[in-house]
């Protein structure tokens, strides 16, 4: 990536609010994510991390605020949100693979139906992605026969098959057994190295310290701290952050 690309703004969030009836989940979140940046989102449970991420591709409908993806206002009334979502890959805590399809069919589904590419091309691309996540031999296997870690890697390949500009990870390793977390984080680490713009809700300290450029620390629906992993982990000024890190370390 060139220097100019590095400074290009991918996501801009301005004063984002989300309310579920009486519950104020997001209280005015604003931030900017640049191309190839890896942003970790941390915070105590109920702080609005997942909701924040899910608002950015409008899986949750924000109550108010502006969101720009590659300069496009995705809250505008005329916007085709499905088109926007093809640019943002998303990986869920519970994998959400389609159980009636094999691994390769899971990966091919969206490119063939949304991007309208041919079966052969989709298969070739899908197999390349499966190779990338180390699961070529599992191509024709159904999700229920895969381990949690393998399912999550297929889910990552499925998201990448749409060739998105941005990847969202919503607690990708929280539902995994400890011995499977590593294989998923390895795949994510490689993506970060290749320059993918990533937003990751996670508490995997090792991964964040190594791969993240920035940490957003959320509490009560607000960004209370925004800094590099070193700043947050070692020189945090905010008592909420210090208290939280003290609990998980």
């Amino acid at each position, binding site marked *: 990536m060139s220097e100019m690309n590095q400074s290009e703004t991918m996501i801009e969030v301005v004063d984002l609010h989300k309310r579920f009836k009486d519950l104020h989940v997001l209280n005015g979140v604003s931030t900017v994510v640049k191309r190839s940046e890896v942003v970790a989102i941390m915070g105590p449970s109920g702080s609005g991390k997942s909701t924040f991420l899910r608002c950015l591709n409008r899986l949750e409908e924000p109550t108010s605020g502006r969101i720009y993806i590659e300069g496009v206002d995705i809250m505008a009334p005329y916007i085709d949100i*499905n088109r926007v*979502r*093809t640019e943002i*890959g998303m990986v869920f805590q519970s994998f959400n693979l389609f159980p*009636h399809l094999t691994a390769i069919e899971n990966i091919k589904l969206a490119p063939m139906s949304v991007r309208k590419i041919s079966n052969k091309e989709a298969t070739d691309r899908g197999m390349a992605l499966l190779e990338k996540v180390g699961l070529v031999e599992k191509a024709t296997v159904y999700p229920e026969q895969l381990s949690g870690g393998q399912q999550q890697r297929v*889910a990552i390949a499925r998201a990448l098959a*749409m060739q998105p500009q941005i990847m969202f990870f919503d607690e990708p390793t929280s539902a995994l057994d400890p011995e499977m977390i590593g294989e998923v984080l390895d795949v994510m680490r490689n993506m970060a190295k290749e320059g993918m713009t990533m937003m990751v809700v996670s508490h995997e300290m090792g991964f964040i310290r190594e791969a993240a450029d920035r940490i957003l620390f959320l509490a009560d629906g607000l960004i209370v701290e925004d800094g590099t992993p070193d700043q947050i982990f070692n020189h945090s000024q905010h008592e909420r952050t210090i208290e939280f890190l003290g609990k998980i370390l």
Partner: protein
Amino acid sequence: MAKLISSQTAVTGLSDLKSKIGHIPITRRNGFVYGFLSVLILYGFLLLPSRGPLGTIDLGRIALFCVLFLIWAMIIFTDELKSEKMKTAIVFSLFIVAGWLYYQYATARWGEMGFLFFNVEMIQKAWPTLVEGFWTTLFLAFGAAIMSTIVGLLLAVFRSFNNPVLNFFIIAYVDFFRAMPIIVLMMLIYYALPFMGISLSAIMSGILALGLNSSAYVSEIFRAGFLSIKKGQIEAAKALGLNGLQTMRLVILPQAFRVVIPPLVGNYVASAKDTALASSISIIELLKAGLSQKSLLANPSPLIFVTVLYLVMFLPLTRFSGYLEKKMKASQRQVRL
């Protein structure tokens, strides 16, 4: 010390056993049971009336015999010390004695049963009409199944949009047709609608009534199928950029179909059985064909044949839908593992 305790327990154990034997009630001892049986047999030979018109005292004797026989059977059947073989024999003997009593005293024309119920000649005479009725029944069943599937699926899809106004009408539709007896619906369509200028043929009225009723159930089945799909599946599809229609076609429907097939087959079978109701609006389906031939030939054999035909059609189907349900539950268990 240990010796003392063990000898003591041995003694109590023995006395336990003794008391148990001592406590077998007299009614359950073998001698009593066989004695009772001999009394029953003697009763049967000496006191049961012969065939023919029965007086009040005769009926009383038969009833007393039945009661005594049942008491004897129950004494053995509820005795845990008696063998399983003996209990099986008791069950068979109950059937045999009941059958024998019925044969002996019911005023049925047993000798003519072959001629009346299983008269091949009569069935042959009725055959062309019965075959026609059979095809009409099939036509009704398939017509209703196709109509109810299309309408029910559409209703369930519309319901999944969660539009309050649309939902109100769909719920009203479902409630109305589930509450309405099919035979009333048929008569309304066939006999009342013509007054408004809507005249449907009998067979169309039948299909429409059956289809309207069945579609209400089918829509509920599909709705349950849609609800069984986890929210994460739809979110994953959305996040990949699939629009609503693509999500429905590629993600929700294929998964929902697997869930709904067993209850759907059960519903088709129930609906197919209801085709017999169409005989009430002058459709000559299988039942009506059997009935009319019975009247024409003054012999119930065609009707018996129709009964057998219904059983031949629906016994395997009910078994099949039960099998599907079992298989479905087994596979769900597997997925959860």
